[in-house]
């Protein structure tokens, strides 16, 4: 046995529940699951030796052995507190401990031509359609979380929007984990056919005890399709979160992502997109860390064809002993001439013990491109604090105002009014907001 080999306790534990997994009668999925389980058994969860994971140690997940919830165990959820996370005017799919809850979800009035259903159901009704999208944007060999997810996901969302259809309402996936020691493993597939448009929100919440929430999403955008994806991660304080969003963008398609990482003890986001000709992606992120939170964002943008545009801005605010990680990779293939790419990562450290590792990486193989990147790590600007003080604002409020202003730039980009207010409220709750007058904003 080589030193690299890992003996994970997970495969044996999860094998017990294999019969209850959705899609066991679907041959192609059974094969995918088998391969992925083998992959995971061989390599386990990602280790610090992997370049993409060198700043984030997930060994605690291996030690804790989080178990899957079977749908029959779903119990105590406070419906009222759930409702406050639901957007007023959205169609919603609610996943409780990784299982679809029809009674909590709202799908009335979805046009017949559009498919919005939970993954378990979709694997019964639409297995053939799903086959061409499953494990296409990301493969099990990507890393341990994707392998694990492929092998043992319990449910998720399938959204299919036909050509030229524009969804009139946003679709919200609400992930809730209700019990200590649970692991929710969900898989989402989003397909927008030619010139289709949709807005999707993923919300993650959970109980105050330790649990794990892992969601892998594959997105396929056909020619000229347009997806705006919001992610609002508000996991409980002791939670482990992994979220992977893997996008394939056909010619002229547009992908806008707003990634708000607020919760969890340890949270990791992977956002990868492949850009074909003249496709455009706009990646926005805001991570707020307090106490001992560790928040890692890993983005990869592949410019595969000419004329594609990528804009990326990630901002982090880290207080107390929190740690942030930003790894942003941009790859420009040899034939991807006229690429226009801009990547920025700005960090505000509010305490001496807060920390950030930021690593932008540009790999450019084409010669006629416009690529820029910038990174800042800093404290609040003393000149600005003095200016505000000279305008009667006390020092602490001045600091709070500047911190708020720094983060609020990302909140202001949200185009859904209801969501904007939700995120603004989270920002005000989570960060030193004393002296900030909500009603003056």
């Amino acid at each position, binding site marked *: 046995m080589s030193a690299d080999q890992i003996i994970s306790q997970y495969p044996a534990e999860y094998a017990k529940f294999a019969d209850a997994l959705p899609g066991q009668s679907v041959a192609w999925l059974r094969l995918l699951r088998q391969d992925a389980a083998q992959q995971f058994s061989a390599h386990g969860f990602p280790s610090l030796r992997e370049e993409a994971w060198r700043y984030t140690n997930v060994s605690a997940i291996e030690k804790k052995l989080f178990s899957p919830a079977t749908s029959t165990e779903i119990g105590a959820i406070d419906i009222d507190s759930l409702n406050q996370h639901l957007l007023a005017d959205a169609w919603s799919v609610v996943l409780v401990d990784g299982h679809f809850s029809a009674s909590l979800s709202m799908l009335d009035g979805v046009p017949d031509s559009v498919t919005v259903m939970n993954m378990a159901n979709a694997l019964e009704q639409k297995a053939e359609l799903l086959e061409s999208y499953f494990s296409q944007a990301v493969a099990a060999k990507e890393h341990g979380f994707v392998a694990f997810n492929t092998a043992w996901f319990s449910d998720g969302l399938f959204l299919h929007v036909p050509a030229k259809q524009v969804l009139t309402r946003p679709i919200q996936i609400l992930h809730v984990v209700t019990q200590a020691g649970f692991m929710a493993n969900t898989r989402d597939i989003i397909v927008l056919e030619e010139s289709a448009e949709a807005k999707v929100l993923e919300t993650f919440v959970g109980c105050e005890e330790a649990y794990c929430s892992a969601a892998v999403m594959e997105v396929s955008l056909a020619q000229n399709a347009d997806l705006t994806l919001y992610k609002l991660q508000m996991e409980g304080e002791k939670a482990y979160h992994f979220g992977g969003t893997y996008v394939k963008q056909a010619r002229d398609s547009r992908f806008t992502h707003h990634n708000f990482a607020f919760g969890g003890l340890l949270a990791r986001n992977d956002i990868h997109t492949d850009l074909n000709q003249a496709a455009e992606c706009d990646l926005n992120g805001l991570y707020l860390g307090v106490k001992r939170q560790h928040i890692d964002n890993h983005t990869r943008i592949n410019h595969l064809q000419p004329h594609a545009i990528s804009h990326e801005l990630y901002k982090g605010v880290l207080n107390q002993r929190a740690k942030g990680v930003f790894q942003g990779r941009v790859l420009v293939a040899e034939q991807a001439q006229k690429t226009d790419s801009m990547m920025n990562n700005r960090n505000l450290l509010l305490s001496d013990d807060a920390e950030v590792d930021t690593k932008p990486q540009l790999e450019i193989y084409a010669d006629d491109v416009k690529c820029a990147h910038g990174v800042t790590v800093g404290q609040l*600007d*003393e*000149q*600005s604090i*003095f*200016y*505000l*003080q*000279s*305008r*009667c*604002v*006390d*020092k602490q*409020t*001045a600091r709070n*105002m*500047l911190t*708020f*202003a*720094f983060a*609020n*730039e990302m909140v202001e980009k949200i185009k859904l009014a209801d969501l904007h207010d939700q995120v603004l409220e989270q920002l005000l709750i989570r960060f030193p907001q004393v*002296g900030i*007058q909500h009603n*003056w*904003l």
Partner: protein
Amino acid sequence: MLSIENLHVNVGDKPILKGLNLQIKAGEVHAIMGPNGAGKSTLSHVLSGKSGYTVTAGNVTYQGENLLDLEPDERARKGVFLAFQYPVEIPGVSNIYLMKAALNAIRKHKGLPEVDAMDFLTLVKDKVKLLEMDEKFLYRSVNEGFSGGEKKRNEILQAAILEPSLCILDETDSGLDIDALKVVAAGVNSLRAEDRSFLMITHYQRLLDYIKPDIVHVLADGKIVKSGGPELALELEAKGYRWVEEQVA
């Protein structure tokens, strides 16, 4: 209103103000002129409480209180206002938010309730008109992307709303064309009152054509080296600072 006695200030080990004396009575307008690097902005910063300066000797009394003991924001709430030579840009904080925060902080200090939202809007729009600004500036981030002249107007707009007792203008006229200068001067003149004093730092006699000072001082090498009436400014303009420095030496 303000009494400065024998003020010595260092930046690090370097003495900048070297025994400065200045008395300003309520209602008076004082102008300070002087060569670059004389210590004019240093004086304005020390009066408003900016960190990074060490007072090694001397006293500053403002309305009977030791000004140097107060935090910058306390001074501001008690009526000391500095219009900056180089106003700072604050992305993400709207102009109107800051003015409301400032005005309410002053009102709280005076034991008054928060300003009524409608009254505030009326007040602000009134002053915006006085300074011939576009209302759009209210909703933009403080000074962000403003031109030099717009920043200076914005400083005076804030003064007009906060109604300070001691208004320190650090080169508010620099970089303004004549039309903008007239507007800014009108804004300042509208603020003149028996219980309000002004300390105007300037390089240009032109400003004093529009805002009549009671007393003109020359600050050179960290001290007030000469004081006189408005005619001193004209004389300075004709003969240059060398003339004063030679006289003193």
